């Protein structure tokens, strides 16, 4: 098993939930498929899904819900 990072593809605001009143997409420890959505990046009022990009298990999130992130910033760690 190797740990790798999921990077934000865009600069913007990172969200862990599809809507404020919805549960988070993924929790620490959740298994993910490579096409699973793990969060959203809001760029100029448009929302873009962030995919896991690899199958594995989420170790932990590195960015918090509603955190401002830069493109290329690591937002989660996964064990693949």
């Amino acid at each position, binding site marked *: 098993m190797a740990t790798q990072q999921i990077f934000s593809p865009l600069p*913007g*605001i990172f969200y862990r939930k599809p809507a404020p009143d919805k549960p988070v997409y993924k929790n620490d420890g959740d298994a993910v498929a490579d096409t699973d959505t793990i969060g959203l990046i*809001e*760029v*100029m009022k448009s929302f873009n899904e962030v995919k896991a990009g690899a199958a594995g298990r989420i170790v932990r999130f590195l960015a918090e819900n509603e955190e*401002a992130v830069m493109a290329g910033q690591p937002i989660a760690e996964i064990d693949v």
Partner: protein
Amino acid sequence: MTIKKLLIANRGEIAVRINRAARELGIATVQVYSKADKDSLAVRLADEAVDIGPPQASKSYLNQAAILAAAQSSGADAIHPGYGFLAENAEFAAAVEAAGLIFVGPTAQSIRLMGDKVAARKAAASAGVPTVPGSEGRLESADAAFALVERTGFPVMIKAAAGGGGRGIRIARSAEEFHHLMPQAQAEALAAFGDGGLYVEKLVEGARHIEVQVLGDGRDVIHCFERECSLQRRRQKVWEEAPSPSLTQAVREKLCASAVALARAVNYRGAGTLEYLYDERTGEFYFLEMNTRIQVEHPVTEMITGIDLVREMIRIAGGEPLRIRQDEVRVSGHSIEVRINAEDPARNFLPNPGTVSALSLPGGDGVRFDSMLYQGYTVPPFYDSLLGKLIVHDRDRPSAIGKLERALAGLGVEGISTTKPLHQALARDADVQAGRFHTAWLEPWLEAHAASLAMTSPPPSAKVTP
């Protein structure tokens, strides 16, 4: 009470616009900013600047307590909210006044009244302003619904009272269709929502979006004629002009008089806009809503009337009466505004924040660029994509379109993609040149022109003709 120091509770191009108006009136400015806007043009231009929080709008530009604290600490005596953010928040307007400050805009009561769809429709009806005909509440029986549509005429939309997001909408184009669809709609609404209640509303097909600018001082109201903003993508205006290319003089007079009647009925203070749907085939117009703020597209009105709307709204907020009489407001020529957004029309309008590596601007008579850009500026990703507005004015519409093409050719924003190529394509389009469009015109046009727009992505060092 004259305003001496104005706090600008906004960002981007409108903050710059308000700063200019304040400066011309000899008023000092305080610019509030989020951490992401520390290097913004608005901050650079202001006499003072106050950090009000992190990039997220909810924690900065929407943070009422932080903005009020900035006003107190800087000694500002008035707050201009711009558009968006807190501009139409009645609670904020009331809090500003409760803090002993001037809110540059209408009263909290006006904001509340016009922000409530049902109350605004009622106010319109009692001022004799037509609204889209339909049922005022839910209809329980097919007979009651039919009695109503016999008055409104066809086509009509049948909507489930409990529905939303376009679910359960049916369009009936004749009495026959109506009788066929109504029971279906009722049964479906009952099955889907457990509620068979329906609404019926006249469908205005091919409607244009026309809006009237008003200016009031709480006692008197004047109009500054109309703007047409039918070119929209995803309900966002893309290209706006004044006057509308589609109104006859008789309809224009009726429309503007109706806007004044409604604004007067609510003792409106400040700059406001009444939005209408206009059915070109019948000449009928229908009030939609009133925006109780300065709007993005206000410059086209300024260009054709010579009235500085932002200056006037600040003077009125300072307690001065309206100083322009209705018969002094005259239309001269034609003006067009296009929105220069950080979006790539070649890639389905993908947002495109980043650094402006080089900037060249068009000039000459009748060309205005209201923007937040400067060379080397990094456009943050946290707010909307509007970078600026290119506005032209000329003697008539064809000349204005010609000037727009010339000005667009001279606008060079390098380092990020913008909507400039979209406007160049629109300016060359035969329907746009003939003024033949409506609110549902642009989206199919974009689909039909996707291939040619995809080729417009300029190389990083695109040539610019000054």
